[in-house]
C-alpha cells in the first residue's frame, strides 16, 4: 500500500495546490514534498534487504487484457524512490528566493512530476511502467517550456519529440513481449515484468528488442549519440526543472537498462552490449572534453552529467555485479551532486544574472559559506575518496575494467577530466579578481544553506559508509544477475 501512497499523494497534493493562490503555495508544496519524503524515508528504513518486492500494491487495471496496476519496491527501486523523495523538497526549498508567475501551477507540475517518477521506479507491470515513463514527460515539458529561457519553446519541443520518439519503440517492444507471455482460455497474457523475465526469446527477437529498449533509454539518459537534446534543454529550462531532469529523470534511463534490458534480453546484451559500452565510453570522453571547453556554468554541468551517465550505462552493460551496484549507488550520488551543482549555478545567476565563467570571479572573497558548499559538491562530483562520487565511480570502473581492460582504461579518463573541468569552473568563478558583477556578492541565506546541509551530509555519509546503501540493493542485483546467468547458459 505504501507504494500506492507514494504515487497518489503527490497527485492529490498537487491538485490541491492548484487551488492555492499567493506566497503560501511554496510552503504548501514544501510541506507536501516533506510528507512524501517521510513516506520514502519510511520505505527505506523499513525495507528488508532481500530480493523481494515490498510495500506492494496490485489491482487489475484492465482486466480483460491482464494489465495490472501493480507496484512495489525492490532493491533496484529503493534508492531511486529515496532519491526522488529526497530531492523534490530540496528543489522546492531552493526556489524560495525566486518567484515564478502562475506559481501554483509551477509547484503542482513539480509534484505531478514526482508522482510519475515514483510510478516509474515502482511499477511492476510493463505497461504501467510505460505509462508513467511517458506521463513524467508532460509536466517537465510544461515546466521547461513555460518558465524557461528565451529559446525555450524550440529547445523543449526538440526534447519532447526526441524522447517520445524513443519511448514509442519501447512501447513496441513491450507489446511484443506481452504477446509472448503464455495465455490460456481463462487468463489473458501478462505484462508483469517478472513474467517478461521468464520468457525464452529467440536470439533474433532479443536483438531487435535490445535496440527498441536501448534507444528509448539511451535517449532518456542520454547516451552518445542521442544526447543532442540535452545541453540546450538543461540550459534553457528553469533551474528547478533542470534539477528534476538531471537529478532524477535521467535515472529513468539507467533504471530501465537494469530493469528491462539486462534480464529480459540477455542474449541481445551478449551481442550488442559491447556496442553499447563503446557508445557509452565515447560519451564519457566526448562529454568531458566538451565540458572542459564550456564557458557557461549550466552548460558545463550539463555536459558533465552527460559524461557521468555514460559511465553508469557502461557499468550496467559490463554485466558484473559491481558494475550494477555501482550504477545504483552512483545514481543516488549523482542525483545529489548534480542538484547541488545546479543550485550553485542558480545562486550565482540570481546574484550576478550571468553564468558565463569569464564574467565571474572573486566570489569567494565575500562568501565563505558558498565556497565551502560549492567545494564539497565539487569534490563529490570529481569522485574524491570519502565522498559519494568515489564509491559509485570506483565500482563502475571496476565493473567496466573487468569487462574489458581497454574500455575500463578509457572510461577511467572520466575522473581525470572531471577534475579538470570541475576545478576549472571553480577557479574561474570563485577565485581571481572580482568582476563588476561579483563585487557585491551576498553570501548564502539561511534557506539556501538549508538546501546544502542535507546534501553535504549525504555526500559524506555515502562516501564513508556506503554499506548502508549497498547492502540494501545487493540481493536484488544478485537476483537480476541470476537471470543473466541462467538464460545465457541455457541457450549456449
Amino acid at each position, binding site marked *: 500500500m505504501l507504494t500506492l501512497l507514494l504515487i497518489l499523494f503527490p497527485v492529490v497534493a498537487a491538485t490541491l495546490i492548484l487551488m492555492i493562490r499567493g506566497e503560501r503555495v511554496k510552503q504548501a508544496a514544501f510541506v507536501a514534498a516533506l510528507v512524501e519524503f517521510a513516506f520514502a524515508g519510511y520505505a527505506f528504513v523499513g525495507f528488508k534487504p532481500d530480493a523481494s518486492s515490498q510495500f506492494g500494491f496490485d489491482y487489475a*487495471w*484492465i*482486466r*480483460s*487484457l491482464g494489465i495490472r496496476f501493480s507496484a512495489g519496491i525492490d532493491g533496484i527501486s529503493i534508492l531511486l524512490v529515496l532519491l526522488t523523495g529526497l530531492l523534490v523538497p530540496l528543489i522546492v526549498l531552493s526556489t524560495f528566493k525566486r518567484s515564478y508567475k502562475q506559481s501554483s501551477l509551477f509547484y503542482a507540475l513539480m509534484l505531478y512530476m514526482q508522482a510519475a517518477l515514483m510510478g516509474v521506479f515502482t511499477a511492476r507491470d510493463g*505497461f504501467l511502467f*510505460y*505509462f508513467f515513463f*511517458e*506521463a513524467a514527460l*508532460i509536466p517537465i515539458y*510544461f515546466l521547461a*517550456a*513555460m518558465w524557461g529561457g528565451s529559446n*525555450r*519553446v524550440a529547445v523543449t*519541443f526538440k526534447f*519532447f*519529440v526526441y524522447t*517520445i*520518439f524513443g519511448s*514509442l*519503440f519501447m*512501447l*513496441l517492444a513491450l*507489446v*511484443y513481449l*506481452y*504477446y509472448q507471455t503464455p495465455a490460456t482460455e481463462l487468463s489473458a497474457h501478462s505484462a508483469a515484468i517478472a513474467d517478461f523475465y521468464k520468457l525464452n526469446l529467440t536470439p533474433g527477437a532479443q536483438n*531487435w528488442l535490445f535496440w527498441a529498449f536501448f534507444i528509448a533509454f539511451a535517449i532518456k539518459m542520454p547516451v552518445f549519440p542521442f544526447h543532442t537534446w540535452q545541453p540546450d534543454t538543461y540550459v534553457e529550462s528553469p533551474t528547478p526543472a533542470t534539477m528534476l531532469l538531471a537529478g532524477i529523470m535521467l535515472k529513468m534511463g539507467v533504471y530501465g537498462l537494469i530493469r528491462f534490458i539486462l534480464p529480459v534480453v540477455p542474449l541481445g546484451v551478449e551481442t550488442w552490449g559491447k556496442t553499447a559500452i563503446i557508445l557509452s565510453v565515447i560519451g564519457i570522453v566526448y562529454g568531458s572534453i566538451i565540458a572542459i571547453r564550456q564557458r557557461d556554468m549550466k552548460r558545463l554541468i550539463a555536459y558533465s552529467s552527460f559524461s557521468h551517465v555514460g559511465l553508469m550505462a557502461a557499468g550496467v552493460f559490463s554485466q558484473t555485479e559491481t558494475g550494477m551496484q555501482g550504477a545504483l549507488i552512483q545514481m543516488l550520488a549523482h542525483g545529489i551532486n548534480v542538484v547541488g551543482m545546479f543550485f550553485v549555478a542558480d545562486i550565482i545567476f540570481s546574484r550576478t544574472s550571468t553564468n558565463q565563467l569569464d564574467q565571474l570571479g572573486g566570489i569567494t572573497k565575500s562568501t565563505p559559506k558558498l565556497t565551502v558548499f560549492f567545494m564539497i559538491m565539487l569534490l563529490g562530483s570529481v569522485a574524491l575518496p570519502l565522498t559519494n562520487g568515489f564509491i559509485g565511480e570506483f565500482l563502475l570502473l571496476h565493473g567496466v575494467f573487468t569487462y574489458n581492460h581497454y574500455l575500463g582504461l578509457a572510461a577511467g579518463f572520466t575522473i581525470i577530466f572531471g577534475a579538470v573541468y570541475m576545478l576549472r569552473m571553480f577557479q574561474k568563478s570563485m577565485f581571481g579578481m572580482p568582476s563588476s558583477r561579483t563585487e557585491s556578492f551576498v553570501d548564502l541565506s539561511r534557506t539556501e544553506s538549508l538546501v546544502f546541509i542535507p546534501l553535504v551530509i549525504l555526500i559524506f555519509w555515502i562516501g564513508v559508509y556506503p554499506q548502508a546503501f549497498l547492502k540494501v540493493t545487493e540481493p536484488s542485483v544478485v537476483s537480476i544477475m541470476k537471470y543473466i546467468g541462467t538464460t545465457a547458459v541455457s541457450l549456449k
Partner: protein
Amino acid sequence: MLPIILLSVLGVVLLFLGFLKSRAVLLPATLLFLAVTLAVNFLDWNKTYLYFNDMLRTNNLSMVFTAIMLGSAFMVVALSGSFMDTDEAQPAEYYALMLFSLVGAIMMVGFENLIMLFVGVEILSVAMYVLTGSDKRNLRSNEAALKYFLMGAFATGIMLFGMALLYGATGSFTIAGIGAYAANQQGLSLLLYVGLLMLLIGLLFKVSAAPFHFWTPDVYDGAPTIFTAFMSTVVKTAGFAALFRLLSVSFEGVYGFWWTIMAIIAALTLVVGNLTAVYQNSFKRMMAYSSISHAGYLLIGLAALGVQTKQAIVFYSLAYSVATISAFGVLLLVAQQRSTQTITREGVNSENFDSFNGLARKNPLLGFTMAVSMLSLAGIPLTAGFWGKFYMFSTAVERGQIWLLVVAVLMSAVGIYYYFRVIIAMYFRDGATETIPVAPFYQYVLLGATIITIGLGIAPGLLQGLF
C-alpha cells in the same frame, strides 16, 4: 433497425419544423431526436436480429458503432449553433440532411447484403456532398462540394462494379454467401479477387486512405468547419465499420490475398498523412491530413485482422471522434473570433495555427480542451488516443507485422510534432488580446468530450465486455 426508421421520420419532421418562424427550436429539437434515437438504439441490446429479408443485421457491435456515430452527431449538432445563426444558413435542411446521412451510416454498419452497403454509402455520401457545399457564398466550399461529388461518384461506380463482379464469382450478394464461397480457399474465381479489390477501393476512398485521399484536404478545408467535424468522424467510423464487417465476414478466407495490400495501403496512408500534415499552416488543413493519418492507424487493425481487431476499431473510432470533434469545436470559436475572413491560398487566415496564439491564457478551458484533444490524437498516455494506438499496435504484433509497426511508430513521432504546434501556440506564444465568450452549453459539450478522453485514458477497461 429502429434507429433507421426513427431517423428517417424525424428528419422529415425537422424539415417541417423549418417552416416555423423561430429557428431557435431546431437545434434543441435535433438534439432531442438524436438522444431519443440513441436510447432506442440500445433496445435490442444483447439480441441479434435480421431485418428486411436478411438485408440488415443488428448485433451488439453494430449498436456500439451506431452509438458512436449518434454520439458524434450529437456533439457536432450541439456545437453547431454559431454556424446555423448566420443569415444564409438553412438550419432545418442541414440538420435533416445530417439525420439522413446517419441513416446511411447505420446501414453501412449493419449491412448483411452488398446492396444494402451500396445504398448506405450513397445515402451517406449524397447528404455529405450537399453539406460540403452548404456555404454557398464561399467559393472554396463550392469547389469542395464539386470535387467531392465527382470523385465520390467515381469511387461509388468502381465499388458497384466490384459488387457486380463479386456476384458473378459467387452468385450471391449476401456477405455470408460470399464468405462461404471464399472459405473454400481453392479454385476461387479471379473475379472474386478483382471484385474485392474494386470494392475495397470504393470504401478506402470514403475513409480517405492513400492513394485515394486526394480529395480529403480540399474537401475538409473547404467545407464549413462544423460539417468537416461531422465528415471526419461519422463518415470515417461508418467506413471502417463497413470495411471490418466486409473483411471479417466475407473475406476472412482469402486473408492471405488482401492483407499485404491493406498493410501497404496502411503504411502509405500513415506516411502521406503525417508527413504532409507537418507542412500545413492552416489548422483545419492539418486536421484533414491528420484524419488521413488516423485512417492509416485504423487500417493497421484491419490488415492484422484478428480477435483484437473489433475492439481496436471500436476504441480507436471513439477516441478519434471525441478528440476530433472537440478540436473542431474550439477551432470554430477561435476562427469566428479572429475572423478577418481574408482568404489566402493556404486557406482562411483565421484558421491558421497563429490564431491559437496565447489562447490558453485568455481562455484556459478552451486551451485545456484543445490540449487534451491534441494529446489524445498524438497518442500520449492518460488519454483515450493512447489506448487506441495501443490496441492497434497489439493487433499487428499478434500477427507479427513488425515492419508495419515500425512505420507506425516513426509516423507517430512525426504526428507529435504537428499536434504540439497547436499546444505551443496556445500556451507559449503571445497573441490573444481578448477573451472569447463561450456559451455555457457549448462549454459543457467541450468539457464532456475532455472528460471522456481522459476517462477512457485512465480506465480503458470501461468500454470492454460491452460487445
